[in-house]
């Protein structure tokens, strides 16, 4: 079979396939971005942008990266324009995803250079913050991966994060950090088990079950925090896990602090992503779990217990979410605030989809969202003309663009969201 952008029919008319149209839309977007970069970021930029890559105290100091802002952005704009034009030429289809990814990366760079023009900006600090902000999203996404790989849609991740944050603060205040962490994981797992019971055994609608758990957790934690924590402040005053540097690795310039000078939650997230990837794709039980998510009848006829598999993985997902939730309190401020997860669970689900239901993909997507999040925070310091409220929207805009537009035909597990009924 033939597959190409346009195919001439015997009668001479031109056929239009979906991919060709997508390629042209991408081309138009890239050209629009090129205009933005050339006429706004390019013309408006004067002076040099200075990016600090290390601190003077670091053992291996790296010189600052100094970029002439105007010329850099003119070149960036030219590259974008080239990529855009090529989408309209013969064979542009093949380059669609690559061009788009490259284009967005160039856009971010041009934006940074423009915002930093005439000033200095710590790249290392921002990467470190990116990682930190990515943690709850990545863990939320990982929880989603574990559940949806066995075909249970888990909308309740938001509630599980919140429950983990709350439990971490409360038990952490009473028993110390490790006790709080353990309790958060247990409570997250308990909510996972409850979700599994509702949707697997009682076949309740998965979305509704998730929403119910979210509302329940939100209501309960808000009540306790406003009625109890305000009176007994010592119940909401947990110790925080501090960052510690891993010897040698932590001294690598630029990425060292990002990956190896962090707290327990960052290391935990990275390790969990690695373990889950190994588990799902390289072990016997991982294969069985994926089979349950893709074709539960087939798994059943081969003697795999579909219900038990779903219970186990949804509970595990809840435990991961509980751990991620503890980050909000034990990993950052040591105190619980009403609705402090602020939708990170849902962004985590977006990261799972963007990451194509793969733990590493979810982590990568979480880093994109974390980057947008920390960019917004750091740019406030640079005093750009863009209001910070707009910058605060950027992670969500990134979510919408990424999930709606560009993941294309990412295939969820075939049985995702469907209850399994024997006989």
């Amino acid at each position, binding site marked *: 079979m033939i*597959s190409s952008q346009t195919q001439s*029919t015997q009668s001479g008319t031109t056929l239009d396939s979906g991919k060709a149209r997508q390629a042209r839309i991408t081309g138009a977007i890239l050209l629009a971005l090129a205009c933005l970069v050339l006429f706004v970021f390019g013309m408006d930029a004067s002076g040099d942008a200075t990016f600090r890559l290390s601190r003077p105290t670091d053992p291996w100091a790296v010189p600052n990266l100094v970029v002439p802002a105007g010329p850099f952005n003119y070149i960036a704009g030219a590259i974008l324009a080239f990529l855009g034009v090529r989408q309209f030429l013969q064979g542009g289809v093949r380059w669609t995803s690559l061009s788009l990814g490259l284009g967005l990366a160039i856009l971010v760079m041009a934006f940074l250079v423009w915002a930093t023009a005439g000033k200095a900006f710590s790249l290392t600090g921002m990467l470190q913050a990116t990682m930190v902000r990515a943690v709850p999203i990545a863990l939320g996404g990982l929880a989603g991966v574990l559940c949806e790989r066995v075909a249970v849609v888990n909308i309740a991740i938001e509630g599980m994060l919140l429950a983990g944050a709350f439990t971490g603060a409360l038990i952490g205040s009473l028993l110390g950090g490790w006790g709080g962490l353990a309790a958060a994981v247990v409570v997250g797992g308990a909510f996972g088990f409850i979700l599994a019971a509702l949707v697997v055994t009682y076949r309740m609608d998965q979305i509704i079950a998730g929403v119910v758990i979210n509302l329940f957790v939100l209501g309960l934690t808000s009540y306790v925090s406003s009625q109890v924590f305000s009176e007994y402040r010592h119940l909401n005053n947990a110790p925080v896990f501090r960052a510690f540097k891993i010897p040698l690795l932590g001294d690598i310039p630029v990425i060292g602090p990002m990956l190896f000078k962090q707290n327990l939650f960052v290391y935990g997230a990275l390790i969990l992503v690695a373990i889950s990837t190994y588990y799902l794709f390289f072990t016997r039980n991982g294969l069985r779990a994926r089979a349950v998510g893709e074709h539960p009848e087939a798994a059943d*006829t081969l003697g795999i217990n579909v219900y038990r598999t779903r219970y186990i993985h949804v509970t595990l997902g809840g435990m991961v979410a509980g751990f991620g939730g503890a980050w909000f309190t034990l990993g950052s401020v040591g105190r619980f605030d009403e609705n402090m997860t602020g939708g990170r669970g849902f962004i985590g689900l977006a990261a799972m989809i963007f990451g194509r239901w793969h733990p590493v993909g979810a982590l990568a997507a979480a880093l994109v969202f974390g980057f947008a999040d920390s960019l917004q925070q750091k740019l406030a310091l640079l005093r750009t003309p863009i209001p910070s409220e707009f910058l605060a929207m950027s992670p969500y805009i990134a979510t919408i663009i990424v999930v709606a537009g560009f993941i294309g035909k990412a295939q969820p597990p075939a049985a995702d969201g469907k209850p399994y009924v024997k006989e």
Partner: protein
Amino acid sequence: MDVELRGITKRFGPVVANDGINLQIRAGEVLGLLGENGAGKSTMMNILSGLYAPDTGDILINGKKVVFEDPGDGIAAGIGMVHQHFMLVPVFTVAENVILGVEPTGRFDYLDLKTARKQVRDINDRYGLEVDPDALIETLPVGIQQRVEILKVLFRSADVIILDEPTAVLTPQEVEDFFDIVRSLRDAGKAIVFITHKLHEILEISDRISVLRHGRITGEGDPAKLTTETLAEMMVGRPVSFTVDKSPPHPGRPMLSVSDLCLFDAHDDFALDHVNFEVHSGEVVGIAGVQGNGQTELVETITGLTRPASGMIRFDDENVTRASVRDRHRMGMAHIPEDRLRSGMISNFTVAENMVLNSYYAPAYSKGPEIDWPKVQATAAQYCVDFDVRTPSVFLPAGNLSGGNQQKMVVARELERETKLVVASQPTRGLDVGSIEYIHERLIAARDEGDGVLIVSSELDEIMGLSDRILVMFEGRIVAEFDTTKGPIDRNAVGLAMAGASS
């Protein structure tokens, strides 16, 4: 290994799917299990494989009673089943599917795919199956997928192999190859249960035959002493002839003409690749082909459910390429869809409501802004009489009807009006013989009244029996045409075209 079923009974709500069944399965023998759709064959074998638990009755292996809690127990006891609907994970490789549930592993639960591939190759070589262990299931044709199912069973060293309607998805040539595999399995000492509703197949492959009707064994015997006629009578309960009575066609003007029709699938490959053909009034054109070669897409574009990427569809001398479904309907196009439960009817609606799904908006059924229900019900009751739809009442949800009556209801709705073109996709899939005969008669009657009739079916016998002209589809193209009015045509030639052999 010998297996015996004793007094097996299984009910699904009010339906008695199996009613006191006794059956013997012996090593080194092919037991042919014949029965109409809905006779209870699959249910019986699902019980034997441990997927369903029987309400009453016993399973004995080598004379000893066993109880299966789940399919894992059945597998452990040496019973393997190839299901009617394949149980393969499309995004897994052949090797992954084969080992699922009995995986070779290393340390840390590591999945040892290397050993798995080797084991799959060994079985491949032993039985001549020729399947690539690394191929993704979704990229394989159904004929090969079936071999993967057999591999799965052999990998678990099953002694009893149940094959549930295995030939339904195969071309005639593939059926011959498949029979060779079945014989080699039997000669290796396996006990085989071969399920089908096709008479000539059961006579060819079986060493012993049992016939099932309405959940009971109605006949047993030696294929050498049985004929298709006696088997048909045991299966249906009355004498039946499987030929369609029809007079020579009188083709008139072109009713449907399709030119240069193209459509892309999700992967941007051609689902329809420059399709050209005509259907004249007063003739039946049959489209043969293995499922998934563009037939579904063709019907959807003709009936207006999908817009083609290019090409033209003319219906009754008008260009309808961009016309809506309702417009085509009003112009006299009838559509009997391939999956009645998905797109032919609404199970929760009553029979009466389903009967007017295509015409509820007509003035005849309106009383001001309301629907004139008494009128609808009266009409529906009349349709039920006209088309032999057996239902206690038109107020019953359509989902409660048997498959045959559901399909007759859909046919009634589509044909009880002035039609010019009938597009029927898999019109008799999964029906009992009585309903099949009835629907065939109706389609021929529509032809004789001057309609153009287009039939799509994966049952080659159906196509050969009904059609005046046969078109064969392969990979989105029409690859061959046969005229049945000019003498009998070669079944093998059609089969070869279906398999894509270029002529």
